[in-house]
Structure formats: structure tokens, C-alpha cells
């Protein structure tokens, strides 16, 4: 405040003027391009680069004017502003612009190009059995996160204990996370689990499973996809939980030990409640990643058999890549985004309440 008041009024108003002018320039360019693209004007600009350049000019002038108007505080704002403007350009704008595409019929092979079609895509999506099937599968995949969490917690406890070669195990457990899910789907899903020559199929035969087809029946395929995905992502959960375990104050556990609490009692009454905040973060983050599941499914089963392993993302991928159905694919993606936002909001809300109740106890 003190610095800002030292700034001459002329400089302040020059900064303000700069913002106004470049904002006007940006608005005018965009409006001009919209009119040109819709055929009201007939300049026939080949692309939208003028709007992009106007945005860059506006973005730079925003930075300059911040310094001009607010001095030291403006300098500080410069640390944040480029990231913010970049996010607006690369994340927020495409998401909003996506709605414009979502309400249109746009098949890349269509003769008429993009056509506004109101709520048609939404209606189609509502009646699309592939979408609902994928969504149902997602509930299974998301529900499995609790099981993954339990596994990860157990492994984290082991890695936190005084075991031999602890450092080696910590690194070893991290390795799957370093692999690309695409590589995992090929290495494991399509090689190790290959019906004829895959070593895992060989082992299964040895154990008495005559026809170890890992991806040919719905539930077996679903569990195997889940296993592949969990194998990649468990280390991520383990790291978070392990960090939580190591940050936990030792004196509480020692006091519990003095009081005679050990083993299960100690875990259930001391460790688990203390780990709740970390656990919640871990689960929520993992759910967000789980909702994006696509690569392993696309590579290993293409959503089959008969849609049993399909995910919403792999469904959208097919609409987009194989069928060039841009309008409908975008609508599916936007609706899925909204469903995720609502789901996560409710989840966080419930978790918040649960945590407050726990704290009160």
C-alpha cells in the first residue's frame, strides 16, 4: 500500500489506459474475427492467429501495467501472472470453448462442417448404452480404490518398519510407477499374460487353470485390467502414505506403547486416525487418476469383451479418433468433466464432515 501510494498518479492512469486500450484491441479483434468467420464480414482471414496475437499483446500489457500501477506489488504479481494467463489460454479457454463445440454436430467427414444442433448431443449421450456401460464400469474401478488404499497402507507400514534392505524395497516398490501405462499394457497385458506363450499363462496352466484367457470373460478381464492399473499406481499411494507415516510424531506412538497399546490396537486407535488427513488426500487423488483410466484398456482389451472393461475415456477416444465425431466426443468429455466435478465436490464435502466429526470425538 505504502509503495502504491508513492506511484505518481500519471503513471497509474497511463497503466490503466494501457489495459483499457489493449483490452479494447483484444475484444475488437475477437469480435472482428467472429464476424469474419460467421460470414457477416468478408475479409476471409485464413486462421485465428490475429486473436492469438491480440491475446499475447494484452497479456504482456497486463504485466507492464501491473508494474506501472502498483509498483512493488506489481512486480510480485508478475511472478504469478504468466502462469495464470497461460492456464487461461491452455486450460480454461479450451474447456469453455469445448462447450461451443459440444453443442454442435461436427463429424470431420461431414460435407456441411460444424452445425449447431442444440441439445441433440446431450440427448444422444443420455440414450447411449456405451456411455452408460462405461460409466457403470467406472463405478467398479473407482470403488476398487478403497481396496488399493488398504493394500497400499499395508505395504507402506511394511516399508516403514525396521525391515532388512528397506531402502532397496522402497526403490523397488517405486519402479512400476516409473513405467508408462502403455508400456505396462504391452509388457504385461499383451506379453506376460499372452494366452499361448505368456509366462503368467504358463504359470496359470501349471496351477491347473486349463485355459488361462485373462481378458476373454467379463469379470476376469475387469479384475485383470484393474490389477494392471493398480500395479502402476500403488507406488504413488504408498509414497504418500509412507510420507505421512514418517511425519507422524513418534512420541504419541511411544506413549501408546507405554500405556500398553500394541499391534492392532495401536494401529486402529493411534496410527489410523492420525493418518486420516493423508489417507483422504491419497484416496481423492487416486480417484481422480482412476477416473482418467484409458490407456491400459485401449491397448489391452479395446474395452472388451463386449464392453466389460470399457471406460468413459476409452469410449471418448473411440468416438474421437476412430470416428472423427468431434461434436459428440466433446459433449461426452464435457459431461464427464461435470460428473467428475460434482462427484469430487460431494466426496470432499462428505470427507470434510467425516473429518470434523472425527476431530470432535
Amino acid at each position, binding site marked *: 500500500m505504502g509503495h502504491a501510494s508513492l506511484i505518481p498518479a500519471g503513471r497509474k492512469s497511463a497503466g490503466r489506459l494501457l489495459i483499457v486500450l489493449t483490452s479494447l484491441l483484444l475484444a475488437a479483434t475477437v469480435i472482428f474475427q467472429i464476424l469474419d468467420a460467421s460470414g457477416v464480414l468478408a475479409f476471409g482471414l485464413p486462421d485465428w492467429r490475429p486473436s492469438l496475437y491480440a491475446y499475447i499483446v494484452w497479456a504482456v500489457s497486463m504485466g507492464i501495467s501491473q508494474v506501472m500501477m502498483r509498483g512493488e506489488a506489481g512486480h510480485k504479481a508478475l511472478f504469478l501472472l504468466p502462469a495464470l494467463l497461460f492456464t487461461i489460454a491452455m486450460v480454461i479457454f479450451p474447456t469453455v470453448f469445448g462447450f461451443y463445440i459440444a453443442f454442435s454436430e461436427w463429424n470431420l467427414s461431414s460435407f456441411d462442417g460444424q452445425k449447431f444442433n442444440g441439445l441433440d448431443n446431450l440427448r444422444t449421450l443420455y440414450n447411449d448404452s456405451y456411455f452408460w456401460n462405461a460409466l457403470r464400469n467406472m463405478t467398479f474401478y473407482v470403488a476398487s480404490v478403497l481396496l488399493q488404499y488398504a493394500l497400499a497402507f499395508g505395504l507402506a507400514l511394511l516399508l516403514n518398519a525396521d525391515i532388512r534392505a528397506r531402502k532397496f524395497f522402497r526403490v523397488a516398490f517405486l519402479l512400476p510407477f516409473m513405467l508408462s501405462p502403455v508400456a505396462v499394457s504391452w509388457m504385461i497385458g499383451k506379453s506376460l499374460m499372452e494366452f499361448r506363450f505368456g509366462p503368467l499363462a504358463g504359470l496359470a496352466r501349471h496351477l491347473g487353470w486349463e485355459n488361462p484367457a485373462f481378458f476373454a470373460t467379463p469379470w476376469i478381464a475387469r479384475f485383470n485390467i484393474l490389477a494392471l492399473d493398480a500395479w502402476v499406481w500403488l507406488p504413488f499411494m504408498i509414497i504418500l502414505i509412507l510420507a505421512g507415516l514418517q511425519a507422524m510424531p513418534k512420541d504419541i506412538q511411544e506413549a501408546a506403547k507405554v500405556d500398553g497399546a500394541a499391534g492392532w490396537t495401536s494401529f486402529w486407535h493411534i496410527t489410523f486416525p492420525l493418518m486420516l488427513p493423508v489417507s483422504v488426500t491419497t484416496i481423492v487423488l487416486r480417484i481422480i487418476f482412476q477416473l482418467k483410466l484409458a490407456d491400459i484398456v485401449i491397448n489391452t482389451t479395446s474395452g472388451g469383451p463386449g*464392453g466389460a472393461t470399457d471406460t468413459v475415456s476409452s469410449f471418448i477416444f473411440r468416438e474421437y479418433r*476412430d*470416428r472423427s465425431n468431434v461434436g459428440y466426443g466433446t459433449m461426452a468429455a464435457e459431461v464427464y468433466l461435470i460428473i467428475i466435478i460434482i462427484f469430487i465436490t460431494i466426496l470432499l464435502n462428505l470427507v470434510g464432515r467425516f473429518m470434523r466429526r472425527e476431530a470432535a470425538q
Partner: protein
Amino acid sequence: MKVEEYNQLLGMQTDRRSLLKGAAGVAALGATGGLGSAAVSGSALAADSLRASILKIPGVGKGSPGDAEWQKVGEMCLEATKANVKPGEFKGVELNFMGLNNQNLHNMLFRGFLKPWEAYTGAKINWIDLAQADYNARLQQSIATKTVDFDILEMGAPFEGDVCGKGLASVMPDWVKKQIDIEDYSDYLKPPVGTWDGKTYRVTIDGDCHNFNYRTDYFSDAELAKAWKAEGHQGEWAVPKTWQKVNEVTKFLKGKKIKGQDAIGYLDPAKGWGGFGFYFLEDRATAYVKHPDNKAWLFDPENMKPLVNNPGWVRAIQDVIDCLPSEPADQLNADPGTTAFQQFLAGTGSMLSWWGDVGSMANTSDTSVIGNDVAFDILPGSDDVYNYKTAKWEKLASGPNVSPNCAYLGWGVYVMARVDADPKKQKAAWSAAAHLGGKDLSLWMVMYPSGMQVHRNSHSDIAEWVGAGYNKDYITSYLKSQFGSYNHPNRAIEPRIPGIFQYYSVAEDELAKVFAGKMTAQQGADSIAAAWDKLTDQIGRENQLKLYRASLGM
């Protein structure tokens, strides 16, 4: 020729030197050069000697050719260009060429072939190299966003609807037709393929079709023959010539053993493959639905109503459902890549339809265990054929109905309409395309690794192949299977309408449900038909109908 095929052909044949020593070699050389024939003209002799000379670069069996060889061949084949273009005529012209870089072939070869052309004409070519997986998306986005940034395009015939149908390609001038001797193309690559509304657009550089690959050891196995008789099957134990027999053999083999291993019949890919999997249902269906009297087999050419749910198609789908229990236990998760490379070449299964790659990789691929026990033929036929016009199954007087599936139709070179505004640039682009698709150059391409298959009648001259160093018996059988499919009068030709792979892809999704037992064959076929109808409306029914008819030459 595809690399694998080239390697395999080399592996199959006898030593070239001993071959040339033999009388067959002498006779072949004589035939190639037209020696002793007083009737041949001087230019024909020169052409023949040019063909014989380029085929010696580097010589079949003398290592893989590289950039130096490609440039040399390009240089030697320049005569046709020189007849139409003056030296330096295209000075200052720059052309963008978009094509593939699969296996370091395609564009890599084209660069070498066109280097001497650039030096002679003065034009300059900029290259846009694409991986196969990026090709469709890049092309469709360029079209949809009106950002076509290339002048010459290497493209498969299925995309002709998207490009030629939308007026994006330049019409081939007559001098180009003459220069490339367009009449020499195999029948199935002649119009309507490469044309739209009677206008020619494509310089063909490749051919494609699905063949029938089978295991010779299965069909010469005495135990199986005995069991076949004992179970009361009609006819001898032999390679099936109809799909009815393929199904019968497949079910018969369930539970049998061959060389101590489980015997398996035909291999159906029950999992989708980005749209390409639908070709394999077509393989079964064409014999049932492609009536010799009708050109159409996928859509009704009167109204674009899908034919995919007629009794012929439903029978093909039902065949797959009925055969799957006799096929490997993981078949529901097997796409065409699995059936070919993890099953058939690895020793599982005895019958498979595929592109030419499989038959030829049997000997060269490290993962292949079937060695010389493989042979190939045109696709099986059917005892009866469904005539959608009379809505009846018919038995033809000529015997089983055969309809080889000419899936994909190979690569071609196209010139984009954006060069038409500038006559000099237009001529330059067409001259480059004509050079690549030249008659002599094409012979070299199909004999050496290039990614291209035989596609001209002149490629069937056994003497030229033998003269270049190929084994006569093997090349005869190889060419017979290729040209037998290409030239079949009832061949099924790819409907080159816009978005054809969208139709295939949506069908794959429905078929996956059918094969998983969630729907009957008829329900699945009806769902495909409904989805296709919707897609046709989305892309534009009237235009689709027009283009479909054009693609059938109607």
C-alpha cells in the same frame, strides 16, 4: 514389395548364380529382352532393356537397396519425364509432399526417386513424413479445418471419398495417363477406383487384397483324413473352397490333435482394430452377399440403406458366433494382429484370411514356427449367395459364389486441387506424381522392398521376375494368388465413401457385443445398420449416396 515378402521370397529361392547358369535362366533372359523377336520395335527393345537394367540395381539377393540405389533407379527412369518436360522447366516451383515413413520406406524411397527429377526439372520438394497411426487424423483435420498444406499426397483408396469426393484433388491431365500407361493397371484398380464422377485422380503405386492362408500339413495329415471320413463328412479331407466347408472343418478340428498339439481351424478376429477389423467379417460375408449381378454389397445404391443386416451378412456373423467355441479360448480378445502374428504364424490355427504379409512372413519372421507348411489361395466361396434385390438365396449355375475382398486397394499418389491455380505448379506436381508411378519404376518397386505390392498387368510377366533372380515356381504361385484375387470378375471392391472407417469402427463395437453373447447376430446386425444410417445422415445422405454410386461406377 513389402520388406517381409522380399526377404521371404529370397529365402525361398535357389541361389541366383546357379539359376542363371540353368537353361531356365537363359530362356527367361531371352524372354525378358525379347531376343530373337524381329517384330519388336526399337523403343520396345530399349524399354525392355531399361527394365532389365533397373532390376539389376542392386540385384535381387544382393543386399537391401538404399538411397544410392533409389536415386540411380530414379535417374534411369527419367526418360518418360524428359518426353514431357524441358530441362529446368519448373525452376522456382516448390511442392509439399505428404506421405508415410513406415519401416523407413514410402517417403524415404520417394525422396531418392525424385532427387534426379528435381535436378532435371529445377523444382524443389519439401517433405511431410507421417507415421501410419497419425495419418488418418492428420488428413481428416487438414480437410475439416481447411488447412491442406500439401500439394502431393500419398493416400489409400478408401480415403478417396474424403479427398476426391470433396473436390480437394486435381484431375489427372491426359498426358499423365499416357506417361504412366494407365491402361496397364490391374482390372480392379481401373475405374471406378482412382476416379470420381468419371474424372481420374489417382496414380496407383500399390495393390491390396485379402488372401486365404492355410496350413498344408493339416490338410495332408493322414490321421485327420481318417477321422474326417470316420465322422461321415462329405468329400475328401482337403483345403476348404467354401465358407461352409471352412466352418465344418473348424468345428471338426475341435478336440483333435496334430503333431501332439491342439488342432484349430479358422481364426476369427473377434476384437476390433480401429476399424480395420471389419475387413475380416467382410472376408466371410462377400461370398454370401456379393452377387455377380449386383455391384453393391454394403449399401443399397438406391437409398444408402445399409445391407449389413440382410440374411447374407447375418449368416456371416452367425458363422463367427458358431465357430468361436471351436477357436482358441482367448479369441474374444484377439484382434487381427493377434490372429496373424501371435496365433497363425506362431503355430495356432490352420486357416486365416489376411493381407499378403502373412503368407510371406511364414519363413522370414523369427516368431514364425510354421515354416514351409503354409500356402495361399483366393478367399473361399459359398454354395449359395443372397441376392438383396430378390431377397432370396440363390445357387448359381456356375457353382459356388466367389468374391475376393479387395480390402484397402493399396496406396496411390494424388495431386491436390490447390495447385490448379498455377499451371506451372500443376504440371510440376503431376510430373512428380507420374514419375513415381511410372511403369518401369513401379516394376522395381514391387520387386524390391518398398511397401508396395503388384498392381499392373505388366507385373505378372514371370520372365521379368525370373530374370531379376526370383525362383520361378515360387513366384508363379505367389503372383497367381495375387492376380487371381485382383482379376476375379466378382471381386468385392472397397466402397470409397467419406468416413468409411467410421462405419467400420462403429460396426466393430456392435460386433464385440454380439461375439460376447450380449446380442444375437440379427440384433447386432440391426444395431450396426441403425448406427450406419445415423452416420450417413450425419455425414450427408445425398452426398454419400452420390459418392457411393460413383465409387461403384454407377
